[in-house]
């Protein structure tokens, strides 16, 4: 009756003994350069033209159980799934396909290797992924997670809109970590996020503006922002206001339009207030509450009608502040 289904389990979800978890001493931080206990991929896209491959590695020598959340930028709804990474195990999945659990995936295929867990597919998606180290659904910080997101161009044409960025890694704070579903990012339980971010960019309105592509070109710099105050248990979107202060190469300071959003936002930098616009400029966003950001610039040759993209992490301005991430309860 049932299609023969060799759905073989990965026993790894508990295969290697989970040793006692001594949170290794690591300096507290929210950045892109160190393994952490919370990984945030602010910009995750799955559409007709682009897909995202998420790569997570356990840099520790103990099994690391992880609870991951897809946060939909439109509805602010979240779904979550569980991963179990053995020591030093890297894993990856395409957001559009998710990943199943089948030990007999063929050698070299996208499912080859110890499947970390069942990962749902997200066909038409724009939002973030947040992953938290846990033990049996209880947050316990090992600070061993590292991640990258590769947003791939899937058109197969001449566009090269492929970019990569490092996941924001939040380490445990100076305290003893948490044991409930409310992760307080106050420097004690977990490191604090920042409210000030600076982005160097090429403004999108002076003629012939891409310094390499010349006359027939345009550059659009897209900023993706996710508040560090997240409540997955109630779909309660956090409202944030971003004040923008811009400087052009002549050091002329202007104030850009405020950007207010709730839950998640992805917008292009508005250079209109630059006076005048110069080839290079910088913008400082001051947020009403702590956020994490990633930037992706799209460089187009309007003559050829093709574009290329490049993403990178955003500099923080040293104004850390407290926020909290509330996970949904489990049965």
């Amino acid at each position: 009756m049932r299609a023969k289904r060799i759905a073989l389990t990965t026993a790894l979800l508990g295969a290697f003994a989970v040793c006692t978890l001594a949170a290794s001493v690591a300096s507290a931080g929210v950045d892109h350069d160190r393994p952490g206990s919370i990984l945030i991929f602010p910009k995750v896209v799955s559409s007709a033209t682009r897909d995202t491959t998420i790569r997570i590695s356990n840099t520790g020598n103990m099994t690391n159980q992880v609870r991951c959340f897809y946060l939909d930028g439109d509805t602010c709804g979240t779904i979550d799934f569980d991963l179990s990474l053995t020591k030093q195990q890297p894993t990856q999945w395409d957001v559009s396909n998710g990943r199943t659990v089948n030990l007999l995936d063929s050698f070299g295929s996208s499912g080859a290797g110890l499947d970390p867990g069942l990962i749902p597919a997200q066909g038409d998606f724009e939002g973030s992924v947040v992953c938290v180290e846990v033990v049996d659904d209880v947050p316990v910080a090992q600070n061993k997670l590292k991640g990258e997101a590769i947003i791939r161009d899937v058109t197969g044409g001449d566009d090269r809109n492929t970019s990569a960025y490092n996941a924001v890694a939040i380490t445990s704070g100076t305290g003893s970590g948490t044991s409930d579903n409310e992760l307080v990012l106050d420097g004690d339980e977990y490191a604090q996020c920042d409210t000030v971010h600076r982005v160097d960019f090429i403004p999108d309105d002076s003629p012939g503006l891409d310094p390499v592509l010349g006359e027939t070109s345009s550059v659009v710099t897209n900023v993706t922002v996710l508040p560090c105050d997240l409540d997955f248990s109630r779909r309660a979107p956090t409202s944030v206001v971003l004040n923008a202060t811009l400087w052009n190469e002549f050091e002329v300071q202007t104030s850009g339009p405020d950007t207010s959003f709730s839950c998640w936002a992805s917008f292009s930098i508005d250079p209109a207030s630059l006076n005048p616009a110069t080839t290079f400029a910088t913008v400082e966003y001051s947020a009403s509450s702590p956020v994490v950001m990633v930037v992706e610039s799209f460089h187009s040759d309007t003559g050829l009608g093709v574009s290329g993209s490049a993403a990178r992490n955003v500099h923080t301005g040293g104004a850390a502040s407290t926020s909290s991430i509330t996970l949904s309860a489990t049965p």
Partner: protein
Amino acid sequence: MRTQILRTAAIAGLALGVGFATGAPASAQSVTTDEAAGYVVFPRIVSDANDIFSTGTEIDTVIQLTNTAADPITVHCFYINATGTCSTGTNTAGSPAAECLTVEECVGEGATCDPQWSAADFTIVLSPQQPTGWVVDEGLSVPAPGDGAIPPVNTDYFVGELRCVQVNDDADATPVNSNDLQGEATIYEVSGSTVDVRSYSATGVQAVLEDGSTQNNKVMCLGGRDDAGGDCVEDDLGDGDDREYAACPAKLVVGHFFEGAFVGNNNSAATALTLSPCTADVATVEPTGLVVQFLVFNEFEQRMSGATEIDCVETVGLSELGLVFSANVQGTLAGQTHLRPVDSTGAGRGMIGLVEEALGGAGLSVSHPNGIGEGGVDVVEYVFPLTP
């Protein structure tokens, strides 16, 4: 000294270069790609604006450098040129500097492609909050109220790095204890039909003190402090903060696809690793040699290892480091590699780097490795003004 410039499909870059002052109690200062710093390194600068070897692709790099302080700052920078040159003085392009990627670009019997390591420095002034930027092939005259001139890279085909230090003034150029620099690099590869772009944040090495005071010499101790003789020695961060800069990490961890893995819609993966020793003796223009051990883990959590040697900043394709990086050997798409310098010739052992990934048909991207642990003491020494 082996300078490897990948000619294969352009490589998307993953910045490799972040080490951290960890292990010690929470150190406010670190080697970071997302905070302002007093010393920034752009480990991967590539320029071939005129496609001198007729590959069909023009390559260029745009540097952005911004003063995040409310006061003007003076910045002293060094281009370090690691481009290979033909021993016979002649290359297939006939370019004056006879640049080469491999011996194939050299003309003449017995020719060899010898890596070089030379520095060219310049000093600029950035006004408060002033952003600036330039195409490395063209250089720039910093617009008022900033000041200073940035020369173009000194060879038609250029591979190397850029290091910039916040200094006291443009006459003396001694490092100061401040962290106000923020930088990004964007590498363009433009062919007849495609525009491919990848960008990374410069790696900042933060000064421990932030009082703006001028340091006592041009010997920058990363993870250490000056001794009486002006050399760098070990320093325990907790004892009075006389350590000058954060230490480079003890090892780097890179996430990557294995070579030839088919990702997404059959995009074949190829990854290039750029490693730049933290230690740099620009005074004597002596390259820093490091032996680097790598441990490679696949998704079956099987482990393989190997080692390589780098002489100064070097970009190497994972496929050139051995079959351990081949998807046909490892059998899975994703891999994790730990890189640890195991041998040093007396110099420090920290590294800064970049990971560039090419997905055939999809494009290029760059991201950072993570740094783990705290390395030893690294030294960056330069002389200014250069005695003619």
